[in-house]
Structure formats: structure tokens, C-alpha cells
């Protein structure tokens, strides 16, 4: 295998990997952890 052929195959492989990665990055759904509740300033009984 010539050097040029190896480089070409590497470029093609990286290109395919980039396209797949980009597709997954854009289209995959990631679930953002939800939080049920809220922040309350410390006051009164919290200082007991």
C-alpha cells in the first residue's frame, strides 16, 4: 500500500467518524437531570 493510499484511507476514516460523531451530537437526546425543589435563604430557625 502506497503512502498516498494510506493517507487517503486515513482521511476517509476520519471524515466518516466526524460525520457520525456530528450526527450523534446533534440528534441524540440527553436527559438533563431534573431537580424538584428550590433554594431558600437561611434564616431564623436555620440558625438555631
Amino acid at each position, binding site marked *: 500500500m502506497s503512502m498516498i493510499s494510506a493517507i487517503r484511507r486515513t482521511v476517509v476514516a476520519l471524515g466518516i467518524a466526524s460525520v457520525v460523531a456530528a450526527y450523534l451530537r446533534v440528534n441524540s437526546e440527553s436527559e438533563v437531570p431534573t431537580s*424538584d425543589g*428550590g433554594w*431558600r435563604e437561611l434564616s431564623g430557625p436555620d440558625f438555631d
Partner: protein
Amino acid sequence: MKVLLYGAGATGARAGRQLLSNAAVEDLIIVETDQTVADNAVLSYGSPARVVKIPGQRTETRLANFFDVVDGCDLVILSAEDDHEAFAEAALRSGAHVVSTSDDVDVVEDLIALDSIAHEMNKSMIVGAAFSPGFSCVLAKHGVRKMDRVDEVHVARMGTGGPSCARQHHRSLRNDALNRVDGEWVTARGGSGRELFWFPDPVGGLDCYQASLPEPLLLHDAFPQASRITARLAATRRDRSTKWLPMLRKPHPEGLLGAVRVELRGTHEGRAETRVYGALDRPAVAAGTVAAVAGIWAVRVAYARSGAGSLGVLVDDTAAFLKDLSTCGVRAAVFEGHTSSHG
């Protein structure tokens, strides 16, 4: 009360202002290498603040001159970028209480090693008295007091104070983190270990990473029974990708909004319990206020004991300390409700 303020940058300037709001402060000596900053501070404070120069390029020379200046001081607040170890020891030996705002792990270790000198002089050496560490340690202690047993303490912070703080933030991501895991000290690569943490609104959820932070060291002294103690730093993709390089641009004079979050896991009345505390403020403002209140407490001899340690070790009445901070405008919050994996 005679106070020496070493470093009048973003944090030091706020500490000085808070100190001057206390009627007991009769003399405030400002030592600052940047003459313009020093002059501006004195102009802003008015009497009884004054500038004193400590000439010398070498630490030894500055230290010799520092001894003359610190004589008769009741309290020394170290908020400059350098000289904490040498000047802290000199101040303790001259009979002053010392407060350090440094969050550099090596500096913190060296300052804790001054415990025997502080004990011998019957003075307090408050280590890491800033927003994080500092306020974070008090919040952790306050929460732990409401639990029967604490197993885990996880601290996260976002934001920076002045330029020194920004440079330290940059270095923290580059260096290895030291965590307490299953009762052992374990290192982790800075910038690794992403976790999503929820800070008080409006900051909300942010990705936080391993970094060289002193909280595990300081909190282990306060809670030796906790088997897991970690600290993480909120960082952007650019922060992490450029951590190996020198800072590419000059830091801002002062960072904007910052936040700290302390998660405690343990047991209370036979049940597993998770408590989450947080705070939201400009880091330099909060750090300066914590340093000032910590110093005033030292002079009032309000700590549990003399010696060197974090606020988590030295403050016994955390509620009173948090009340004092609240009076100065630095307020804490507690998360209430059901939490997801990381509340």
C-alpha cells in the same frame, strides 16, 4: 484594634472596608506593592487607614521589614498573592492573629503546619478564609451539626474574584486534585471527572471538574470521619483546553457572579440524609467579608480553640458566624426538595 492588611486587591480591599465598618478597628495599615492600588484604597477608606511600604525584592528582605511594621498589631490579614507562609509565621510570633485568604494547596498545607506556633502564642491562624474555601467550610460544619453522622462532603464552586484568583483558577485546573476516597487520599487529573452540579439560581446547573483545591484537606481536618471528600471547580471548555498554556489574556480586574455549593451525605435519626447548602455572591466581596469577620472573631477570641485551621475546624458556633456574615450581606441558602442524582 490595630490591623495590618497585606494586599489590597479585589478581596483585600473588601476585607478592609468590612473591617473599617467595625468601630473596634482604630488603625488599619495597608501594605500593597502596587502604589496606585494602595493610594486608591486609602483615599476610599479615609481615616484611620494608612499605607506603609515594605521595601525589598527578596522575601528575606521584605520579611525583615515586615517585622518592624507588624509590631503591635492585633490582627494580620494576608490577601496578597505571595508571602503567606513567611509573613504568617512572623505575624504569629509578633503576637497577632492571622487570617489567610489563599486557596493554593501548598500554601494551605504550610499554614496548617504553623499550628504549634499558633498554639504556643495562643493565637488563631485561620487558613483559607475566603469564599471557597472559607464560607464553604462554615456551611459544611453548619450542616454536619444537624446530622448524626457525615459520610461524604462534596464542594463545588464557580467564579473568580480578582486577577490573583483568576490565575489560581487557571493553575488549579492544570494541577492534580487531591480527594478523600474511602478513607484514602487519591489524586485525580485536573480538568477531568466532569459532574453536573446545581448552584443557587440564577446560576443553575454547571459542569464542574477535578482541580487542585484545598477543601478536601481542610474539611478532612474538620470531619475526619467522612470517608469521601471532594472539591470541584466549574470550568468552560476553553478553561480546560488552555489549562496547559499560560493565561492567554490578562484577567479581568474582578470576576462577576460566583457561587459555592456544599453537599453533605450521612445519616440522621437512623435515616440516610442529604443536605445541600449554597451561596451566591461576587467572590471577591464574599471572600473579603469572610476574611474580615474571621479576623474580628479571632480578636474577640470567639473560636473553639487557638491554633491553625480552617473555619470548619475553628468555628464552633456556626449559626452565629453565618448570622454575622448575613448582617454584612453575605447570605447562605439551603436546597429544599427532592434531588436528582446531583440535586
